[in-house]
């Protein structure tokens, strides 16, 4: 397996607050990886660094062997934990936007998925429900042919049926050569689709393991192990 992402001694401080504390980890290609931790553990900070929305205080990140730069951005498709498309946009505007920005964007794939959900190209984002907005963003992000997908809380705040839709969209668009990093604290919903998990607490990695190994070793679900590790 190739190393897709390598983080070495990654530290991020916000003022006196330590968001990431000397994190070293690597992500292989061809895996679906869960980045799991309670609120404020550093999940979003790590994903933001990978996407160059913030820079580490110290440490190094390599993506496909290269330090972070414009080229590595083109390899990573990012779903932020908030809506970032303008409220005034129509679906067709958002599609044009993606198509303009990303050469690896597959317009017809996005249009097919939107059609199946009865989302029209003329629909305005302002008029959409939260769940529909999340689905739209996910469809756009998953319609890129990237090497790494960083999905920050893709299922938070939507109903269980929408969650199922989102997870099946992730699986059905998953290219076996690509990797997906999913951050969430809703573990029981995602654990059956993961290859690997990374537990993160107070900015440190406390565990990285293949999920089935973890189940064999502990005889418990990942959700159960998480509750033990992060017991308050």
């Amino acid at each position, binding site marked *: 397996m190739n190393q897709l992402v390598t983080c070495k001694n990654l530290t991020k401080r916000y003022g006196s607050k330590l968001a990431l504390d000397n994190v070293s980890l690597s992500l292989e290609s061809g*895996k679906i990886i869960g980045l799991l931790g309670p609120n404020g553990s550093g999940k979003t900070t790590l994903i933001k660094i990978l996407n160059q929305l913030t820079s580490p205080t110290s440490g190094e990140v390599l993506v496909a062997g290269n330090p972070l730069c414009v080229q590595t951005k083109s390899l990573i498709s990012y779903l932020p934990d908030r809506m970032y498309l303008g409220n005034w946009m129509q679906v067709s505007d958002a599609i044009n936007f993606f198509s303009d920005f990303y050469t690896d964007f597959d317009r017809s794939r996005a249009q097919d998925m939107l059609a199946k959900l009865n989302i029209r190209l003329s629909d305005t984002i302002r008029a959409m429900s939260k769940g529909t907005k999340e689905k739209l963003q996910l469809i756009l992000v998953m319609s890129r042919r990237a090497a790494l997908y960083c999905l920050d809380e893709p299922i938070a705040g939507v109903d269980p049926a929408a969650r*199922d839709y989102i997870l099946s969209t992730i*699986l059905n668009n998953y290219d076996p050569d690509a990797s997906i990093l999913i951050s969430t604290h809703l573990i029981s919903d995602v654990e*059956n689709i*993961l290859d690997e998990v990374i537990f993160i607490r107070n900015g440190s990695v406390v565990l990285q393991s293949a999920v*089935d190994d973890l189940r064999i070793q502990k005889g*418990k*679900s*990942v959700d159960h192990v998480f509750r033990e590790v992060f017991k308050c």
Partner: protein
Amino acid sequence: MTWKLTSDRPIYIQLVEKLQFDIITGIYRPGEKLPSVRDLASEASVNPNTMQKALAELERGGLVYTQRTAGRFVTDDQALIRHISMELAASHIREFISTMRQFGMSDHEILNLIEEIMKEEIK
């Protein structure tokens, strides 16, 4: 979602068991072509890598085989299917006997009860 999976046991093992069950019970017939990894994974709502691992495991046991370009097929070896179904039956019976013993029943009582219930069902 038609595949019942629990999260406290390795998923690939549960997939192996489910596919074995479907082959033994004839949902997939001897010599029949299996759906693609992607379709099976999608049906089970699991990661294609996990489904791949389960199919590789079945292949090791000889229950399915890959034909280089055509895909994956159920074995034609009826004796092997029969053998695996006997193994599975034995393991179910062992589990059953162990539960009955926990209920405090003697082996004689267990056998009598089985016979009695089977007779009732015939009527």
